[in-house]
């Protein structure tokens, strides 16, 4: 199974998950109203969504050049990160169990895609346009600041530096997913963890909408927490990357709240 098969699998799984959670969390009344007003609602958030689309487009175009540029402009902070936290990730992996590996791997690949896409659907379905605009802005801030960090810092993850004590659990257990993740990640750009920052951003905004979607708030927080741990458990990120990811999420949410009242 390679890129195409993994991609089809991802799209099918995430689509089913979104369909199910749309009916359970959003509800049919809201969905019907959304279908009637979908144009107007997207239009209301046109500026932030346009900005997000632009950021994603630029991101996909410059990802390779950025990884290259980092070798010229950036600092290799891998030794510094190791100096700060040492074998912490190896300690996390000391709890490894096949069931946990499966849980964290699926959360890292499928849970993450679901977590990022579903709130777009859920917030379009709201009459109040604020959450959708905030989410779009917060995503844009995450990707933009993430990209800046990727130019400034070269960092390899623990699996690539201390491979004797940290196993590359995702790719040794499910090697097919490396074709998928290598489409959006570069192994020399792990600082900060965008998996952490974007998941936490979603959970943060879900908390703001907890009165409308109490179920989603709980689901998002749980999945985000699993993803945050998975980045370390799978040997992909250092705890330092995760800490930076949390700080990035806090910044993104702060910016979003400031600009969307």
């Amino acid at each position: 199974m390679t890129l195409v098969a993994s991609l089809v699998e991802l799209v099918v799984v995430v689509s089913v998950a979104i369909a199910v959670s749309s009916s359970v969390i959003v509800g049919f009344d809201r969905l019907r109203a959304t279908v009637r007003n979908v144009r107007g609602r997207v239009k209301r958030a046109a500026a932030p969504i346009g900005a997000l689309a632009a950021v994603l487009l630029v991101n996909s175009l410059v990802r390779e050049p950025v990884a290259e540029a980092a070798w010229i402009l950036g600092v290799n902070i891998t030794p510094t990160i190791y100096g700060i936290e040492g074998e912490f990730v190896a300690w996390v992996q000391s709890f490894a169990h096949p069931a946990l590996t499966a849980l964290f791997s699926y959360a890292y690949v499928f849970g993450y895609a679901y977590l990022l896409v579903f709130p777009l659907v859920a917030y379009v379905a709201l009459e109040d346009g604020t959450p959708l605009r905030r989410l779009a802005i917060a995503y844009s801030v995450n990707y933009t600041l993430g990209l800046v960090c990727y130019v400034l810092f070269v960092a390899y993850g623990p699996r690539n530096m201390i491979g004797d004590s940290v196993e590359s659990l995702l790719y040794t257990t499910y090697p097919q997913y490396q074709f998928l993740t290598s489409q959006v990640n570069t192994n020399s750009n792990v600082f900060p963890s965008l998996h952490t920052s974007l998941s936490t951003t979603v959970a943060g905004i879900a908390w703001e909408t907890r009165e409308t979607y109490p179920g989603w708030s709980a689901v998002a927080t749980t999945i985000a927490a699993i993803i945050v741990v998975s980045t370390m458990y799978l040997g992909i990120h250092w705890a330092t990357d995760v800490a930076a990811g949390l700080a990035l999420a806090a910044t993104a949410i702060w910016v979003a709240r400031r600009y969307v009242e």
Partner: protein
Amino acid sequence: MGDARSNQPGLRRRAVLAGAGGALCSTAGCVQRARNVLGRDSTSQLSLRILTLPTDANPFSARIARSLAENLRRCGIDAQIEPADYEAILRRVLINGDFDLYVGQFGRADWTDPDQLYSLLHSAYASESGWQNPFRYTDLDLDGHLETQRTAAGIARERAVRSIQRTIAETQPFTTLAFPDSLATVRVDRFRNWTGVPGDPLALLGVESAPTASASTLRVVTNDGRITANWNPLAVEFRNRGPFIDLLYDSLARRVDGERRPWLAADWTVERSEGLHATVDLREGAEWHDGKPIDAGDVAFTYRFLADTSLGSAETAVPSPQFRGRTSLVDSVSVRDDRTVRLSFAEAAEAVAERALTIPILPEHVWRERTDPATLAGLDANRAATEALIGNNPGPVGSGPLRFDSATVDQRLALSVVDDHFLFGSDPPVDVGGSLPYDELVVRVAGSDESAVELVASGGADATVSPLGPSVVPRIGRETGLRLLAAGSRAFYHVGYNTAEAPLSNTRFRQVVAGLIDKQRVVSDVFEGYAMPAASPMHGTDWLAPGLEWDGADPATPFFGERGDLDAASARATLADAGYQYRDGDLLTE
């Protein structure tokens, strides 16, 4: 180290205390004392950075670096590991000299001939970039032996080669670690008759169609994406392994089954009259991939161009760092007629001089335009480089059996078979049965060994070309469609030192570092037995110097300890004997 400037640590500490008190006393003696103390460079803990590839790119280097760093730390040295990609490492080590030490592997070089060591260690190359003396090592005695090895024959050459190996073993400009087995996996439902490992260009030319298959594309996978972005045979930071450049470009001669055979040359004759000369006849009808004929002018151009890629337009010659050892064997070259060139060699024995015939031949009409100085590059600004050395050589025009089709960076490379190449003609240098069983060779890039094996297992590729680590061997064994191939490789692992800068400029220090690596352990733990530990780069050849054979332990720099357990006290004592000082257990800078 240990020179007149160092003084007793006890005295020094008292001096510091007294100096601090100097601020309170006003006598001239006190101030003088403070000046004595503060005027000296302060000492701090000695720190070293070990460069290594990340595990995704090489499963061994980072692990070797880890155990070395751990042992260095136990000797009181602040050792850190810095993972970096191929390009960054080669650029820092080979071009800019910006490193302390690295763990790495020599390329798929001709490591059966001791003349390799000439360009690797001769001090004439200490200031040049590329694989010539990356260690910046200078030793006049060694230079002498290296020169003798080049010019002498028979027993005199053997003696010189032994002296070279003993000098290397004693002074450790680099530490030879182990000769690995190249591991690969292939599936045989589409193509079969894999000889050697697919990382060898001849293996890719030697496959046959499986009986019931009708595949026209050979698909291979690598975890080294550089070949999808750069096809410049002269770019040192891109060329240290991989078979594809050898398939795109031909050389006059090529090593097949351990002997040099005519390749693009139909034949050559060597004669000795006022120096050593070779008259080389080219094959008839050979063409570049763009359809232009290959003539003697291209061959002569190649040797002149590699000796000075500015072709005389720069103030000093800008030789190609790649192939420098081999081009240095050629003094001059002249065109006799369309298909005949005459090479005049520098002083060298015939067997050594013929190595010069194995460099890739370049088309003059493409490369003649690339003599301008490079304007932008990640290089020292004051070091000359030409476009020829820096460019990616897009759409490479070679003359080899495969031609460039298309590429997507870090994803894919497609090459197609050149049907009228001499390999498929009436008098081929190796028998491939008149044609290849495929029209196209597609190279896919995978992120790591695991995903490369996954691609072959799932039927998305026929073979892995980048050497695999032993961690994927069990997986290959479980899959019924996969076969494991292993071949001894001369591309040995080593630790390279920057001998131009303290503390690795100190031979005694390097000897201690070499003794911190338990090579036997490295082979059993890191390579899981798929390697041979070695004390000399000539290990496994007839050239190996007596006394440097591996007999369970390193004969030159034995490990400080037993069975992987470091005897740190003994290593520290050796460093102290070499004049190094400790403070609170930390090794101090000079």
